């Protein structure tokens, strides 16, 4: 047996080290009390983690529901409900030693049986996240506080995947009693806060878990997460002290917010990258030359400058992957600032090779039969900051090339539904989306995004892209434990993506979090999480700013 034992003290030590490096002061002694009001942009259509992978829902779950392992600000895995773990010699069995004396909010004990139930149920009932646990066979309770994961093949990304928030351990008793429908409005986990109220479309309320297993925590009395869809309204509420923190800020507002001495603005690079889905089942998007041409037709630097004020996003260094993701390699050519640099001449040449060129004085791109090329582009508005603006620019750049682009702005729920169709039902030509890697591990994009097995509705391959070499490399990397070999597989996979260009690659987002300066101890993670469950208020500073809660 190879083993990795991790002390319970590590999270505290790690958080102490990392947080001290952040802009906010952590040296002061935490103070107890107060209600944190946190404004989010998006509504959750269900709170049941088995049926929802929404990014914004993760900040809701983490208050009340905990995962076996956690991820810190350096994207490192730290213990949480699992104290330590050991891996068998054949890498097909991972045994977790669990925290003892932990109780779910309904009073039932957290133990190996409960944890194993959640994962086995996820497999049986096909929870949305189960496709991330590729090769998961079963979970067994070996003793009261020892649970084993049995895998069909070694799974290099098991631990990062187990840190993904939807894989938190909910109470089996509550699940059996209330069912999925009951847990759609009620979170019953082991977290530092007890979920006490949920008003759909308005707010979610959490109150301090007095029996929380990490003694002395949490510090706040309660957390209220409210929904405020409009970014400028959220910003105004923060400036007035009506809320304590908010995310998804308008980048054009950041400079102004930073001048406010009562507000602390933090930005970090994220794992979230914009892209335009190209439906490969529709010609000419099944032609790699055409797809590469579209990639070269977009001025990515211009998008970063205009939509994100030069700071809310960054140029891509690799397809799909970003800095901070395990096994990342910079795939830019020497002297180039991004992959697929803006080059209209190259785009036109590739389009000509693909059979499309401007044949008349009307300026429209036509095929050899004189048929004009016209495509539909769908976009949501406000699902991710800047999405509507980026979609408009994509439309403009493609129009400049001679492609007719009909842009349709869709309401978030309608867009989400339309984008979750299988190959026969998908009606889009192109759609603007963003892709994050919440596990910070390449296994997720390799297996869940570009693999043939990940075609919607199973995975996130909305392009219906299929490439045998891409699949072969992904399968190899999935079971490879050796870090160097895995990194090479990932590099090969990205190199192949640059040749096949399944999507139009667009800039990588920087995340922004703004909070009042009296709020201490909250975090911003590159995986688009903003934990505040161990945050606290500096009461004197709060008083000085005239805020009372």
């Amino acid at each position, binding site marked *: 047996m190879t083993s990795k034992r991790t002390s319970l003290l590590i999270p505290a030590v790690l958080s102490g080290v990392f947080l001290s490096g952040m802009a906010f002061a952590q040296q002061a002694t935490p103070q107890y009390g107060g209600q944190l009001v946190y404004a989010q942009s998006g509504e959750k259509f269900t709170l049941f983690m088995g049926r929802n992978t929404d990014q914004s829902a993760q900040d809701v779950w983490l208050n009340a529901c905990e995962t076996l392992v956690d991820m810190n600000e350096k994207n490192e895995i730290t213990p949480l409900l699992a104290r330590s773990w050991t891996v068998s010699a054949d890498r097909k069995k991972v045994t977790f030693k669990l925290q003892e004396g932990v109780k779910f909010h309904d009073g039932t004990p957290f133990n190996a049986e409960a944890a194993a139930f959640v994962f086995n149920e996820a497999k049986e009932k096909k929870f949305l996240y189960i496709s991330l646990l590729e090769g998961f066979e079963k979970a067994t309770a070996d003793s009261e506080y020892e649970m084993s994961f049995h895998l069909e093949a070694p799974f290099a990304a098991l631990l990062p995947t187990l840190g993904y928030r939807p894989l938190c351990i909910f109470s089996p008793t509550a699940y059996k009693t209330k069912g999925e429908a009951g847990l759609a409005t009620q979170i019953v986990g082991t977290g530092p806060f007890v979920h006490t109220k949920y008003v759909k479309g308005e707010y979610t309320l959490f109150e301090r878990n007095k029996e929380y297993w990490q003694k002395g925590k949490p510090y706040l009395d309660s957390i209220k997460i409210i929904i405020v869809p409009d970014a400028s309204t959220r*910003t105004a509420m923060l400036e007035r002290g009506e809320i304590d923190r908010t995310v998804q800020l308008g980048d054009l507002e950041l400079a102004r917010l930073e001048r406010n001495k009562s507000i602390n603005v933090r930005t970090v690079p994220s794992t979230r990258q914009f892209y335009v889905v190209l439906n490969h089942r529709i010609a000419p998007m099944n032609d790699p030359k055409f797809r590469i041409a579209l990639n070269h037709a977009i001025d990515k630097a*211009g998008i970063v400058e205009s*939509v994100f004020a030069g700071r809310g996003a960054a140029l891509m260094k690799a397809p799909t992957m970003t800095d901070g993701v395990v096994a990342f390699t910079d795939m830019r050519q020497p002297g180039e600032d991004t992959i697929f640099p803006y080059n209209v001449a190259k785009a036109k040449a590739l389009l000509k090779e693909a059979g499309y060129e401007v044949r008349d004085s009307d300026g429209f791109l036509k095929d050899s039969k004189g048929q004009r090329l016209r495509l539909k582009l769908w976009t949501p508005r406000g699902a991710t900051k800047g999405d509507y603006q980026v979609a408009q*620019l994509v439309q403009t750049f493609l129009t400049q090339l001679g492609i007719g682009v009909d842009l*349709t*702005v869709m309401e978030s729920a309608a867009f989400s539904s339309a984008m979750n169709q299988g190959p026969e039902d998908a009606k889009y030509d192109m759609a603007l989306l963003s892709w994050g890697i919440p596990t910070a591990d390449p296994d997720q994009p390799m297996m869940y995004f570009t693999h043939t097995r990940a075609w919607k509705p199973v995975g996130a391959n909305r392009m219906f892209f299929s490439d045998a070499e891409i699949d072969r490399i992904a399968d190899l990397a999935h079971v490879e434990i050796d870090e160097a070999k895995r990194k090479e597989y990932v590099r090969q996979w990205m190199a192949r993506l640059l040749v096949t260009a399944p999507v139009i690659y667009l800039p990588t987002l920087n995340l922004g979090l703004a909070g009042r300066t009296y709020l201490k101890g909250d975090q911003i993670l590159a995986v688009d999480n903003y934990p505040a469950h161990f945050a606290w208020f500096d009461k004197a500073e709060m008083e000085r700013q005239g805020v009372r809660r």
Partner: protein
Amino acid sequence: MDFLRRFAQDRVGLAFSFVLLALAVVALTAQWIAPYDPFAISLRQGMRPPSWTNWLGTDQFGRDVFSRVLLATQVTSKIAISSILFAVLIGVPVGMFVGYRGGMAEAIVMRMTDVLLIFPIILLAIVIVVIAGPSERGVVIALGLSQMPQFIRITRGVTLSIKEELYVEAAIAAGASTPSILLRHIWPNISAPIVVQATLTLPVFVLNTAALSYLGLGVQPPNPEWGQMLNEAKEVLASAPYLIIGPSVALFLSVLAANLVGDALQETLNPKLKGRRLKRPPVFGPARLPGARETGN
């Protein structure tokens, strides 16, 4: 000439009819008089405040806001006039026919219009746009359908009174066909209230076009529309407040001018109402022409 003389007596109406005329000229010539290409982006020149080069500044993509406001005048006018034509060309013949013939057809049509009139215009329009899809055509259908019941009711009401006139009875006695009676004897005598209603509906349609576009259900990018421009400006209001000026002023002027001209027109065509300003159609509720006779069954 008598009409023009009487119309000119309303100085406010006359003044704003010139404003409306100017807007119409802008709408007809927008693509030629715009100082810059309203669609041309210049990403490194975005969010520039008003200057001699760009009178209303540039938007996030470096597009000239003044040029886009001018083009939006054309887009809005096209939608508002198309919607009115849609409502009039369907509503008026139906109203004349059911008013003239009566019977079961009248009962069915009037009950249907009653049902449609229950809903506020904007709500009805949103439902129709969601079904038809967000586009200029969708907005035209939505606004046209939402106001069609009002035109049916008004036309039916005035037709009911006109058909009792002796000259109509004489035409019937002479063996004239129904279409001939409707076109030659009834239409010339009911056209005035229809024209006034259409004028009063114009600002309602302009505002609702802006409202739908503001909600993302109307004109789609890259075509500019005042409501859509206001929505985009709202997101950067604190950083670039100047972006809101152009579309706001254009919207305000066009609605004010259309309302005041509508009022003046109404007073000119219906001298009995002289001296008392009338209620205009509610912007987000069913539009109603005050003074028009509505005879129930």
